């Protein structure tokens, strides 16, 4: 978001906060250090980094059930100027009646069922510079209208402003050799970031199953990273491209997606799929799997969940897609203790390129307000020429201590 837009939104947020008067203030502030096991691969990268981040949250609700939410976010990073960034995660007003509501402003919406790849989630842009797990999202300006008649829920979205994906800068780790150029973004739409995107979703629950189907029409949240040899020729002159940079190209898409979760006994089944019609080709992508939970292992309170998922798509653009034929294995361990301890481990295996990666996350609470999170990612085997190969020296451990209030 441009500085001016951001400042205006912040001013609206703070004045609405002042007008709304007494509400609830909560949120977190965190310090983080990331240590990398190896020296950087790419020119200009700093080895390690430390940062501080905060995300306060103001919430006010009125007697009639309508509410106001304001969630600004900011991070200061020692190494990467781009990772020093701020965003408005949420700034919206919700008006609610019996079986319908309207939400206006900057909001956050998640669609999906699976754990490893968030395929069908499309409303909010990924704040990739925050974490490579892709779970951090930028606030999305929207008008949402939702109605729940007896036969399910219909959600209609009008998305008037597009948010570009964040990428690491020259000094940052976990990036491609060429830095993504954020000053020369190409849009297929002549309205650029002001293209009016729309989405309609239907969801319902039948017994043990939840499912949703949707159609999205507008700017793809997932940029194609153009190099001089791979550009949309009618939109850019290859001569204008900098050999040293990747140009994000945001195409116009029509996407039909579905997500399903089904619970039966100790089993959970998950599926996400979409068919996308875009600038280069039409293609299909899917991910799905199963999770089984062993409860009370060894007669105690510890639960162990084991899960396996598979992801694939039939797009034939080689290096641009990471999950074109990948298998995932994961384990969750929760002792159900007072400290809310969790241990998560995930392993990804590319079935075509013999690439694999491992991630481990441990988190627990200290006292009433502190939470410590330690996670580590290892890019074990990478194939020459793939996106993952550019991260081959970026094995890292991240320690985060957050104060929640």
């Amino acid at each position, binding site marked *: 978001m441009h500085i001016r837009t951001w400042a205006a939104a912040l001013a609206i947020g703070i004045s609405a906060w002042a007008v709304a008067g007494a509400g609830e203030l909560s949120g977190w502030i965190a310090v983080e250090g990331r240590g990398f096991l190896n020296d950087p691969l790419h020119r200009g990268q700093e080895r390690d980094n430390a940062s501080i981040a905060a995300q306060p949250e103001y919430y006010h609700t009125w007697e009639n059930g309508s509410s106001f939410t304001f969630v600004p976010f900011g991070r200061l990073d020692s190494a990467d100027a781009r990772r020093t960034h701020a965003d408005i995660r949420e700034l919206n007003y919700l008006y609610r009646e019996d079986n319908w509501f309207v939400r206006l402003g900057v909001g956050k919406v*998640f669609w999906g069922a699976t754990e490893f790849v968030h395929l069908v989630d499309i409303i909010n842009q990924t704040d990739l510079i925050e974490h490579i797990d892709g779970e951090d999202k930028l606030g999305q300006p929207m008008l949402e209208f939702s109605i729940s008649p007896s036969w399910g829920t219909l959600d209609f979205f009008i998305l008037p402003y597009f948010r570009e994906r964040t990428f690491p800068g020259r000094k940052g780790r976990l990036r491609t050799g060429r830095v993504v150029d954020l000053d020369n973004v190409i849009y297929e739409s002549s309205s650029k970031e002001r293209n009016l995107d729309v989405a309609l979703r239907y969801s319902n629950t039948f017994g043990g199953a939840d499912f949703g189907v949707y159609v999205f029409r507008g700017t793809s949240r997932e940029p194609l990273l153009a190099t001089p040899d791979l550009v949309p020729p009618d939109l850019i002159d290859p001569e204008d491209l900098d050999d040293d940079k990747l140009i994000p190209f945001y195409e116009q898409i029509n996407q039909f997606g579905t997500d399903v979760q089904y619970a039966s006994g100790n089993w959970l089944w998950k599926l996400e799929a979409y068919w996308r019609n875009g600038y280069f080709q039409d293609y299909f992508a899917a991910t799905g799997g199963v999770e089984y939970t062993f409860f009370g292992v060894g007669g105690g309170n510890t639960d162990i969940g084991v899960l396996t998922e598979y992801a694939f798509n039939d797009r034939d653009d080689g290096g641009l897609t990471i999950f074109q034929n990948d298998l995932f294995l994961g384990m969750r361990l929760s002792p159900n203790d007072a400290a809310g301890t969790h241990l998560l481990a995930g392993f990804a295996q590319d079935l075509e390129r013999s690439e694999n990666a491992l991630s481990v996350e441990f988190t627990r609470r200290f006292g*009433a307000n502190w939470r410590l999170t330690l996670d580590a990612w290892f890019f074990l085997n990478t194939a020459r020429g793939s996106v993952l190969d550019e991260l081959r020296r970026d094995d890292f451990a991240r320690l985060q201590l957050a104060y929640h209030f």
Partner: protein
Amino acid sequence: MRYGTCAWAVALMALGAARLLPAAEPSPEERGLAIATEADRRERGYGDSTANLRMVLRNKQGQTSERELRIRTLEVENDGTRSLCIFDTPPDVKGTILLTHAHKEADDDQWLFLPALRRIRRIAAQNKSGSFMGSEFSYEDIATQELGKHTYRWLRDEVYDGNDCYVIERTPVDKANSGYSRQVAWLDKEHYRTWKVDYYDRKNDLLKTLTFKDYRKYAERFWRATRMDMVNHQTGKSTILTWSDFTFGTGLREIDFDRNSLTLLR
């Protein structure tokens, strides 16, 4: 002819009743079920309710930690109970919501809303023996007890804490997914309020004892304990629940317990 058939049926019923009469004493199982049924009947009909809950967890060394949550429940005709647990503290789980559709016989449906990701995750709800929020209460201890999920047996009558009580035994029907082999409960004869429950683990050793204190009457007929103490005899840990602000008939409806409404709640 029709009248004749009817009269014959009535006579047969009277005969049946007369035959039952001399038997006098019902079996301990019949008495147990009758007591549980009456307690269940008195419990029901509240429609919907809301309450605030404070949990104090204490470990063996005496260190404590606290949780605060809001609970909303709705009785659904012929289909068990809907409930929402909205967590307010500790701050790192603030806004987390557990939604349960407890069914009379079928497996319960359960969802967890994770506010940081705005994500609704379905969770495997069949297992009931896990700890609730790290406390000494398991999901089956806090969930609404559907009558059909246990079998019952009257053990004896006994005075407990000044109340003339029935002592009954409850045995889970779904043994594989319960943490207990059986429970023994003390209910007073006047209002069928539970005062104490002993929980026996799968090896039939005494595991936990729950005691109820400070009963108050709401809406002129519903008794609710405002304090519950659970002591785990095997680990030395304990949990105290303090209930406040019970409100009945607040106008909650099924749509308030819909999966999609989770993203709107705070």
